[in-house]
């Protein structure tokens, strides 16, 4: 693959909220793919790591689900700006906001800076039940305690694709979605489905008003769902769910 081909890429995704049933397959697939250790029961942000998390939203009578992960902000990437270790980097070749645990010193500035709360801190040593280490994905190294984790658009799969000389690949969450609600691809490729869907009138981005140009888009035919995307605080009274 030439460098020119690399530079043209800008990976992103469009999530169809009208198709998402909140089944959680993407969350499980993400954890399995990225060697996230099983969390204890009733895990919190301190005891469990969910690089992808599905949030329910409701208008009082209907419920829809919003899978939220790192938005891979394109402009003034907040986490990259605040990292004192340069452990976070917006890869200009792919558009992926990468996280390097080897550089991370665990200050958690990036967690405070992220407007989407999409980063998680490894407070504890990752522990797998006896024997389960054999099931770990060889394409991703387990992280140690004291570092921040987040979605990296399945960089293990990206590297494997690049090793094969390919520019297209499928992240685990996209592969596992039973309703095919997630479309993934190169936003720079005007012929791709993801670029086409991102430009429709029904597509939107979470907290777009911040101007960080996230590369994760959502779409819904329902106006109340699109309106919910602009909220930056808790849900209005009577609209909380789950």
């Amino acid at each position, binding site marked *: 693959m030439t460098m020119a081909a690399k530079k043209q890429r800008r990976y992103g995704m469009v999530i169809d909220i009208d198709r998402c049933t909140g*089944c959680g397959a993407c969350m499980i697939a993400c954890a*399995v793919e990225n060697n996230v250790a099983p969390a204890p029961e009733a895990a919190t942000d301190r005891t469990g790591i969910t690089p992808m998390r599905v949030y329910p939203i409701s208008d009082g009578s209907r419920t829809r689900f919003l899978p939220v992960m790192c938005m891979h902000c394109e402009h003034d990437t907040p986490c990259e700006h605040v990292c004192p270790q340069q452990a976070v980097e917006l890869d200009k070749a792919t558009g992926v906001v990468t996280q390097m645990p080897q550089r991370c*010193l665990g200050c958690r500035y990036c967690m405070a800076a992220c407007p989407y709360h999409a980063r998680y801190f490894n407070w504890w040593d990752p522990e797998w039940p006896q024997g389960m280490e054999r*099931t770990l994905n*060889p394409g*991703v*190294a387990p992280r140690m305690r004291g570092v921040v984790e987040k979605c990296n658009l399945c960089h293990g799969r990206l590297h494997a694709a690049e090793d094969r000389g390919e520019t297209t690949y499928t992240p685990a969450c996209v592969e596992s979605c039973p309703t095919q609600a997630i479309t993934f691809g190169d936003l720079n490729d005007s012929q791709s489905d993801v670029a086409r869907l991102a430009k429709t009138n029904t597509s939107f981005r979470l907290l777009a008003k911040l101007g960080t140009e996230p590369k994760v888009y959502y779409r819904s035919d329902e106006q109340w769902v699109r309106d919910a995307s602009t909220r930056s605080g808790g849900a209005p009274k009577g609209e909380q769910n789950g």
Partner: protein
Amino acid sequence: MRRRDLITIGAGGAAGLALSPAPWKALDDVSIWSQNFPWTPIPARGEQKIEEAVCELCASRCKIGIRTIDGHPVGVSTVCTRAVGAHQLAYHKARVRQPLHHGSAVSLEQAKAILDEAVQKAGDRFAVLDMAPWRSATLTAALHGPVAPWTTIDYEKTVKVISFGAPILEHAPAMRAWSQQRLEVIQIEPGRSRTANFAQTRIAVKPGEEAAAAERVKPLVTKDTVIVSAGGFDAETETAIVVLGGTPQRDDWSRVPGHSLDLLIIRHGYLGESLPGRLIESKLSSKDAMIVSFSPFQVQSTLVIPTAAFLEKADEVTGWIPAQPELKLADATPRPRPTLEGVVLISQPAVHGVDMPLATKLNQESKLTRRDGCAYIHPETGRQNGLTNGCRVTVGQSTLNAVFSPEVLPGTVEASVDWTDDRYTAVTLRRA
């Protein structure tokens, strides 16, 4: 030494240390040490392969890809919440690793002796209940034929489903059809479940009034409509559903006379599904009646004998389950209705028990349909996956009797030969 000398030496030392690489090197080493804990596991390296197999975690039997390192599964390629972590099920904390009698660990020999004695004592008053009839090596299918629970509906062809509380839209094939707007779901249930939330039509009913609701939706029923229920053992609800038609005929749990069983043997599914306790108890003759469960996970029973979990090699976790015995290949049985005389037990070494060319060949020879394919057991590895697309393996009556004789039953069970029948059906078997 004067006070001034002390200050000079201290300041000079501090300045020298700061200018030397020592503190930075120390910081670097501490950083490296603290981030390379020897107890952080390193994923296995080795030859990677993608094996095709058939998922057995529900009755849909979807085709899945299993990524292996030196033959051990490290990932599952699928579109299903259940199956995506299937290769890690065997390591769940609820995994049973030793036979349990009244909750206390016993040896396999002791468990076999207890089971043998119970079979002898029960006479004809025992039943076998299979919670995962889609597995291979079916024995009781010979008696009753293929009976499909709601998860076996062919959602590629179904256009309309009236569901009485069945979690249709938590089921990958149905979700796929629904998302492509090929499937209309009418959901009838009291609560706002995930399926009710996304169904095109939702009819809220009070609990227990499903039969009345069934009358109300009769006008919606067309010849293409499939009607399903959440299953379970509620005889009244089941009857109401069957009357409306569309569902596969099923042998009702209610056929088993009440308080008639001294021994109930339950073959649980790979997820260790449990049954409503009160409905089980209503069939038991007394409080002393025995429930024997074969399950990978902890379940409430008098005696629990662990079986291999899905994608688990028998000796990997449990350690004591012997290798699969050799099974004999006999003539394939034409479908759709199996006969007691047809015998199809297949012994064919294959990776993870799946031998697709052989499956194809047998399917062609026996003219099996998609839902009635063939099944495989891996005689060498003992892995418990590996069904082809849809199969009922049947055995002759003599084999059936022999298998369920007191002399053979414990050994058969130990070898993980499965029974099958409808998920919600118990079949009373007579000893030879």
